[in-house]
Every structure is written in C-alpha cells, then in structure tokens.
C-alpha cells in the first residue's frame, strides 16, 4: 500500500504518522502541498498513492487540495465534505445541533447591528469566535456590552467581509479544563482533559494547555463518537466541555493535532490512526 501524507508545515504529528506507516510496511511519503501544481482541466491522475492523509495546517489549502485530489480519483482522509464542515464553525454547530449532540447555544449575526441582540438573547458573558480558525485564536469571552461594542468596532475595521458577521456563543461555566478526544473511524483513540495554562482561560495545547488522560463515561464516549459520525467521520479531534447541564461538544477538528494527547497516554495515537486509515483503503 502506498500513502502520501500531505503537509504545508511539517509538525511532529506528520512525522509520527510517517514513522508509524513505515513500521507497518506502508510505503508512505511526506508531500509538501506547497510544491504541488494541478491541471484541473484534465481528468484523473494524481500519483499520490492509494490514500492521501491530508495534514495541511492551512484550512483553505487543505480544502482546495482535497477537492482536487478527490476530483482526480484519490481517496483522502478526511473527505472534502468533512473538512468543509469541520472548518466552518457555523456548519459544525448546525450539524451537531440537528443531530441532537449537545452543543453550546449559538447565534450568528449577519451584521454588527444584530450582535448586541444575539448577546442579549444569550446573556453575558458570551463567547465570540471567528467562523474559520483554530488554536483559540481571536476567540474572546465578552462580559459586558461596552466590551462587545469595542470588539465589534475593531472587527468592522478589518478588510475581510467575513469578519463583519458574528458567531456568538453562550459561555459555558466549566472547570478550567476541557476535553479533547481523538477519534479514528468508530474508535475513541484517546481522551484527555486539557488544562488551561496560567493566565489564560483557553485550554488549547497550542497555547500551552496541559493534557491528562481519563476514561470517559459510556455516555460521554457515545456523545464523542456520535459527534465524529455527524460531521462525516474519519480522523477527528472532538472537543467537549463539562457544563452545568452536562457535557457539550463545541468543536470538531478536521486535522487533529495530538501531540498533547500523546504526552498523556502510553499507546501510540499515530499508530492507531494509520491502522484506521489502512483499513479504509479499497483494495
């Protein structure tokens, strides 16, 4: 079996996936997406093997590349639809809510005029997030109306029109930690708490969050696997929180980073991921 691991910034994860693939006897190559060019007016053919493990750090590069590869007949993990849905918080929240997966109540305001209305409906504090983005970047907890007005004013000055629409979410009163679950197909590969670093409320490992493994309850496990299935399945990072009314899933990550989770468990996460990917390849 031949596999390509496409990347645009080589992280520990991609190298770990390649190492595991090598030890499994999979002929795997690390392929820099920035060095690829496609003639999209032509038919099939991509030369990237039986399966492509899509690991680009740029959401749009990942999305475009997956689209072209699938168009050329490649099997990509994750699929384009999954990447598209997970990369857009609006779409993720809608999919989770529609499927009955508990998720924080969220409003989308299509103009700055309506943001305050959304916040009032939810009640302060609220969380303002960008539609696309990760690592907690540009995510703010807003505790009152004047702060909201300031942030909206700043957002309105940004040139990107997407910044002039607003994803406003209820603030979940949670302990200073959240939950990261790594899912591969129908298997919950790892489940960890992520503790916020000192001086930050965000738990993202990219911001210094610390991971600690735990065994989820059967109900939580079921919720996590359902969330992964709802977005279309594959290799995913499901993020959940412990709220006053129970667990809520707030995000599903399409290009899951698992270095933090790996530091907390004894088994090899990339091995389990590669085993799953190998099992999906049509022979």
């Amino acid at each position, binding site marked *: 079996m031949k596999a390509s691991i496409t990347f645009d*910034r*080589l992280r520990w994860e991609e190298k770990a996936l390649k190492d595991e693939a090598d030890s499994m006897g999979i002929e795997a190559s690390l392929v*820099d997406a920035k060095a690829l060019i496609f003639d999209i007016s032509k038919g099939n053919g991509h030369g990237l093997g039986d399966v492509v493990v899509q690991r680009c*750090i740029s959401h749009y590069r990942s999305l475009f590349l997956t689209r072209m590869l699938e168009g050329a007949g490649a099997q990509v993990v994750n699929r384009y639809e999954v990447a598209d849905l997970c990369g857009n918080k609006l779409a993720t929240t809608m999919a989770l809510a529609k499927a009955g997966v508990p998720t924080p109540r969220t409003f989308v305001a299509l103009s700055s005029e309506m943001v305050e209305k959304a916040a009032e409906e939810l009640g302060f504090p609220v969380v303002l997030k960008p539609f696309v*983005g*990760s690592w907690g970047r540009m995510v703010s907890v807003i505790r009152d109306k004047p702060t909201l007005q300031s942030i909206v004013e700043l957002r309105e000055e940004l040139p990107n029109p997407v910044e002039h629409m607003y994803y406003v979410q209820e603030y979940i009163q949670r302990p200073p930690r959240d939950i990261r679950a790594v899912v591969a197909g129908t298997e919950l590969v790892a489940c960890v708490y992520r503790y916020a670093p000192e001086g930050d409320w965000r738990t993202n490992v990219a911001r210094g969050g610390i991971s600690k493994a735990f065994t989820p309850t059967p109900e939580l496990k079921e919720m996590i696997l359902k969330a992964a299935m709802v977005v279309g399945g594959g290799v995913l990072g499901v993020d959940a929180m412990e709220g006053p009314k129970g667990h809520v899933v707030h995000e599903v990550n399409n290009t899951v*980073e698992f270095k933090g989770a790996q530091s907390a468990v004894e088994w090899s996460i990339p091995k389990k991921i590669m085993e799953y990917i190998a099992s999906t390849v049509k022979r």
Partner: protein
Amino acid sequence: METRCSECDAVIVVPTDAIVGEIVSCKDCGAEYEVAEIKGGEAVIKPADQVEEDWGE
C-alpha cells in the same frame, strides 16, 4: 548541519536527521525557517510561512 540566520546572522544548527519541510528556528532571535533542500550534507533553509488566519486543526 549548520547554516546562518538571515535576520541576525547567528548559527542555526539543523539536526542531521532533518527532512525537507521541517521547521528550524534561530535560537538567538527566534526567526523560523523551513528546510528547503538537503544536498551534499548541507541544509538550505528559507524563511518559514507566518501564521495565517486559517491555520489550525
């Protein structure tokens, strides 16, 4: 493998097992570089892309 930082001229040590695409950073000024090529035991580096709005998981 050793090369130099184009920002501050400090020596950057590229690990011998580094592969093309890997990120190395200058210990003195923090500038990040991507390994562009390895030939004849020498590493060629180029400035790494900066974080974009759509970067993440």
